[in-house]
């Protein structure tokens, strides 16, 4: 449907390309409601998502909680199995790759999770945490492991003497550095960063963002940066994708999306960003009483229930992601002609 985004030429030079990716979770229903033949509930975590990430590129994925951004990150690594669609990594279709083949590929794709406390095994020393991707790839040579771990831990700004410590002996920011060391130790090409700085202070966040940029230059990494923070996405990304209830609603260069947001949802998100400044004002965000849910979403535009510009056509027909201006896509019937700002 949205072939423009994943067109062949683009896929060819992309490191990672995702086409029409769908992930549905069935909602488990009780015995009684099944007897009563209640309609089946399905969570549409991802619906028809297509995108690509080039080498050395950072793609920011922005959205509120429940938009499917984390599911997207997990699915492209096949930590979650897609319901349908294709994932192409480095020219190889990994959508239905077997376990052992996948293992070999996984060396090149890593992830850093949001909460450093729960993503580090409290009983493992930092060394064992960091070299885990190498051990998973079958490397047993102690010398290689020590060398790689030392290099990785230095690259993230910690010292090799700290490899002997346990995770509880580190602060939140340092723990996240350890997670990053684990992600880079196997020399991957691609890292999914799932809210890497959300649980941290602004000052520590700034340190880590600077570190991530340095590592990207040094190791030639590609990032998929999942965040709800538009400022962080703008600062880090070459291109950004804005997600709403499992769909990409806007995709384009970070400058264009931030400078000329086409989708009303992007405009809403941008106007809600509070940056330190003398003239910062509180935006007037329309209130929605019922929580928006991606369980059996309605036909038509998913944002229509919250959109101040919604017309009949928005409820009737689902807008496709179309190229509104060069390399800037939006899924809105009135893209570019409405403005909330």
């Amino acid at each position: 449907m949205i072939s423009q985004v994943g067109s062949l030429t683009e896929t060819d030079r992309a490191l990672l390309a995702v086409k029409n990716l769908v992930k549905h979770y069935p909602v488990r229903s009780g015995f009684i409601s099944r007897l009563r033949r209640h309609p089946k509930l399905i969570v549409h975590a991802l619906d028809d998502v297509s995108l690509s990430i080039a080498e050395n590129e950072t793609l920011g994925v922005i959205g509120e909680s429940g938009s499917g951004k984390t599911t997207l990150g997990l699915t492209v690594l096949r930590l979650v199995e897609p319901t349908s669609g294709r994932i192409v990594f480095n020219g190889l279709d990994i959508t239905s790759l077997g376990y052992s083949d996948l293992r070999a590929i996984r060396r090149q794709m890593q992830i850093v999770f949001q909460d450093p406390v729960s993503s580090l095994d409290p009983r493992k020393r930092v060394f064992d945490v960091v070299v885990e991707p190498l051990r998973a790839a079958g490397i047993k040579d102690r010398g290689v492991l020590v060398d790689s771990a030392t290099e990785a831990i230095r690259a993230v700004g910690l010292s090799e003497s700290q490899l002997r410590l346990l995770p509880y002996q580190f602060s939140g920011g340092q723990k996240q550095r350890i997670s990053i060391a684990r992600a880079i130790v196997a020399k991957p090409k691609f890292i999914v960063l799932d809210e890497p700085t959300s649980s941290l202070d602004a000052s520590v966040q700034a340190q880590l963002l600077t570190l991530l940029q340095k590592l990207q230059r040094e190791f030639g990494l590609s990032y998929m940066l999942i965040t709800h923070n538009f400022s962080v996405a703008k600062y880090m990304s070459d291109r950004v994708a804005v997600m709403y209830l499992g769909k990409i609603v806007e995709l384009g260069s970070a400058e264009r999306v931030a400078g000329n947001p086409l989708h009303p949802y992007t405009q809403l998100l941008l106007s809600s960003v509070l940056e330190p400044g003398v003239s910062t004002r509180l935006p007037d965000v329309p209130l929605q009483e019922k929580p928006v849910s991606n369980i059996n979403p309605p036909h038509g535009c998913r944002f229509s229930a919250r959109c101040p510009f919604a017309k009949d056509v928005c409820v009737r027909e689902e807008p496709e992601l179309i190229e509104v201006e060069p390399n800037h896509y939006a899924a809105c019937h009135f893209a570019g002609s409405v403005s909330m700002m």
Partner: protein
Amino acid sequence: MDDGLVLETRDLSVGYKTRRGLLWAVEDVNLVVRKGEVHALVGESGCGKSTLGLSLSRLLPDSQVVYKGSIIFNGVDLVQLREGEVRRYRGSGIATIFQEPITSLNPVLRVGEQIAESLTMKSLKMYGYRSHDPKADGHLFGFSQGTMLLARAKSLYIKHKEEVHTLLSKVGIQEPLRVANMYPHELSGGMNQRVMIAMAIAQRPSLLVADEPTTALDVTTQAQILRLLNSLIREYGMSVLLITHDLGVVSAVANRVSVMYAGRIVEEAERKSLIEKPMHPYTRGLIASFPKNTKKEGLSPIPGTVPPLGKYPLGCRFHPRCSQVLERCRSVEPGLTVLSEGRRVACHLYD
């Protein structure tokens, strides 16, 4: 104490009794909150902001905490009061809301029942409720205390239905009847925070301590909650002590700002002058840590981290992380000096 003041702390220090001895998390804090103002308390985690916020209504367990100095609220020094007497000021004088509404709400009570409870905290004695009495035995007429509490909450809700619904609509909930009958897990984070705010304003407090009230929420919800707080301040003439690490939030809602570092206030100013002309290197670092619009313009983060409690360096506590450190900073701790009207800073650069 002049009339415009709601709360004043005088050389307030708060220490935790630990196995390593008494550790002071808050030291010599002189904080003034005026009527109707939003006073923001800013700093990284571990700077003592939450300790200070909680200690204002003495919410920290008395057995583990030591206070020095005084907390003057309505002309009364709360530090000198006994636990039972402080309780009278909670809710009706100083109310507190927390970062994660879902962990502060009772999962087994409906929203309406919890709000009814906070409406009537004063009259709890009537129901024989003795929450912190270790001698209170768990049973009454053969029912467990839990069952009794549930029954009591239900009866309170039935009795105070009208007031509960008014409160819910005050915090912007459009269908108070429906929401009052729901449990916290059925509501979104933003809605739960509204419920918390309804409980906090139930007894019309003169000071609301809001400890990172929007940090766990999406940006769009954050804007809504901050707007709600703003309108309540105007309507009730309430003052707010807003504890946050987000200078964006501060820019949008605060009147005055106190910056805390390692247990001490290092700078205090009007919001506008603090954002425009931050003086303390720490404040400047906090502002510079914020990723600005443009890409790859370069951030200048503050190096290092907040020293842990009890391991503060000699001299200025910020000097190991400071880019403009002087010789004096390593040995002499700078005091908070008044530079101009309403502007205080603790830094040797301005001596």
